[in-house]
């Protein structure tokens, strides 16, 4: 990977302890890595490996017990809740396993949501950005569909559009294909690879080892530590894999 590119994420010996009853649980035991602009990183690990905790750190939803986390050059550890909310609003796009769309709201309204909390956007600018993001994920024709009128794949596309709309420094996907069937999962991977090709930085947390083959780099976690961190030199094309899948029988 080109080392001269801008460092988006830098973790320096990040530790996170939780106190459960009288015991201290060490969820992260000193994690250090850097992610450069334009990388597509998968973070893998079994449950209990600390990947959710790491994702919360990366997403500025939580702060480290010790160690430093720099997002786009800014230290997150000492930030207040309010400052972190602002940082999330500007720098991070989340994609969740269960989509987390607002019920009874249209695609555009869902995608506009992050911009609602950014006073620099006017109503017209919000809509324009939302429409653009929806077009980027291939939902240009479903702008005013409500979330309950869409399939799982379409809902996840809306969620990805919502993650793109604020032009974030990094997109954080948490098991983003976990609720989808194989075919739709590959469709999502095609979309993520397309975003990667456009130069976006993506961090994809998953327990599915297949996905790692489509990313540019794979970090394995075990017991709160990095077990391996490998650059993937042979990135498979999700579009090709999708084409090889048997055609759906009906619909």
């Amino acid at each position, binding site marked *: 990977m080109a080392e001269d590119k801008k460092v988006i994420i830098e973790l320096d010996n990040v530790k996170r302890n939780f106190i459960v009853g009288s015991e201290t649980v060490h969820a992260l035991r000193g994690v250090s890595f850097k992610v450069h602009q334009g990388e597509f990183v998968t973070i893998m690990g079994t449950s209990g490996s600390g990947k959710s905790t790491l994702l*919360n750190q990366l*997403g500025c*939803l*939580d702060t480290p017990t010790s160690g430093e986390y720099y997002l786009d050059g800014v230290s997150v550890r000492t930030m207040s*809740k*309010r400052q972190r*909310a*602002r940082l*999330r*609003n*500007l720098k991070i796009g*989340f994609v*969740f396993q269960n989509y*987390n769309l*607002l*019920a*009874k*709201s249209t695609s555009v309204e869902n995608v506009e*949501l*992050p911009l*609602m*909390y*950014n*006073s620099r956007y006017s109503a017209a600018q919000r809509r324009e950005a939302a429409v653009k993001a929806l077009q980027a994920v291939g939902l240009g024709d479903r702008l005013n569909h409500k979330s309950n009128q869409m399939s799982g794949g379409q809902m996840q596309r809306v969620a990805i559009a*919502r993650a793109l709309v*604020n032009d974030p420094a990094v997109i954080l996907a948490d098991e983003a294909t976990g609720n989808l069937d194989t075919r739709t999962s590959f469709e999502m991977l095609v979309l993520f690879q397309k975003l990667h090709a456009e130069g976006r930085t993506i961090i994809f947390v998953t327990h599915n080892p297949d996905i790692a083959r489509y990313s540019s780099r794979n970090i394995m976690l075990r017991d709160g530590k990095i077990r391996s961190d490998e650059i993937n030199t042979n990135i498979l094309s999700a579009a090709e894999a999708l084409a090889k899948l048997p055609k759906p029988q009906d619909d």
Partner: protein
Amino acid sequence: MNIINLFKVALRAIASNKFRSFLSMLGIIIGVAAVIIMMAIGQGSKESIRQNISQMGTNIIMIRPGADMRGGVRQDPSAMQTLKVEDYKRIDQEKRFISHVSPEVTASGQAINGANNTSTSLYGEMPEYLDIKQWSVSDGECFTEEDVKKSAKVCLIGKTVADELFPNGQDPVGRTLRFKSIPFRVVGVLKSKGYNSFGMDQDNLMIAPYTTVMKRVLAQNYLSSINCSALTEELTDKAIEELTTVLRSNHKISGEADNDFTIRSQEEMMQTMSSTMDTITIILVVAAAFSLLVAGIGIMNIMLVSVTERTREIGLRMSVGATGLDISNQFLIESVMISITGGVLGIIVGYLGTLICNKFGLPTSIPLWSILVSFAVCTVIGIGFGYFPAQKAANMDPIEAIRYE
């Protein structure tokens, strides 16, 4: 998030749970309507009493014997004999702020005309009494001062007495009736005044010269009261002062000694009545206000349910950049909107309610401030009872909220 978007979000949340929102509004609607109706009835009764009293004449001053202590026992005013005819005469001679003055003695008993009889009250007065009370004679005319001097057995009768004793449309004027077996010639019939606001028949009475009643009916030498009218309502206080001076000197009361009479003005009575009505109104309104409190608790309850229900939504909003303040504002505005909408509907229902009360004969009058106060109270309820649920939402941990099932 800016305020317009907050309102949009709140409106959508309310609209997506229409029935539930309406039920929690209903508490506010009932509470506000109750407060408005109670205030309207209170205010209406007060105004109607005021009107009734002022119809009796606002410049009337009544002097009664009273405030008399004998051996530490306060005496019943009617048993006291401190007001004399001399008092009346001196007031009449020295009056400056008083336009009319009339002594009064009263007797009650049976009035009889042939086979007809009725129980009534006989007032012994001066002809000026009609000027004080602003009464007029509809048939015949009033007795004269000459009649008073001669203690003539003449009388005016009220409409009720006339109807009872002279049925079948007989003209009572010129006829003779008996009161306590003393014959009185009827010289006039008073114009009907109907019932007063305390439910008393103001037409069931006879008026005769006070001398006649004192000497021939009661055989007493003291007065039961003296009625005066001040020149104008504004001069009532000066008139009272004047009367006090005259009576104290007449009764030889000096220095610090208490008066042996009581002077009360109609204005004073009016104030007493008003303040009684105020007390009743306050009690009614406080009772109604409790229903508002209960309504507020209802809103708090529904907001807590709403916050729990939307935990995931809160988590999502926080993860895309909403601050605690954004979330708290969102829920606060929602509860304020529920309570203010309820308040506005409550004002409308309250207004319709007072119209219905009016139809059933209750005097009502909605004071403007009661509407403003209801509005303010609703806002306070919305913020007050929405605050705790809003804080609960604002303090959620986004990590847990977004994974909430």
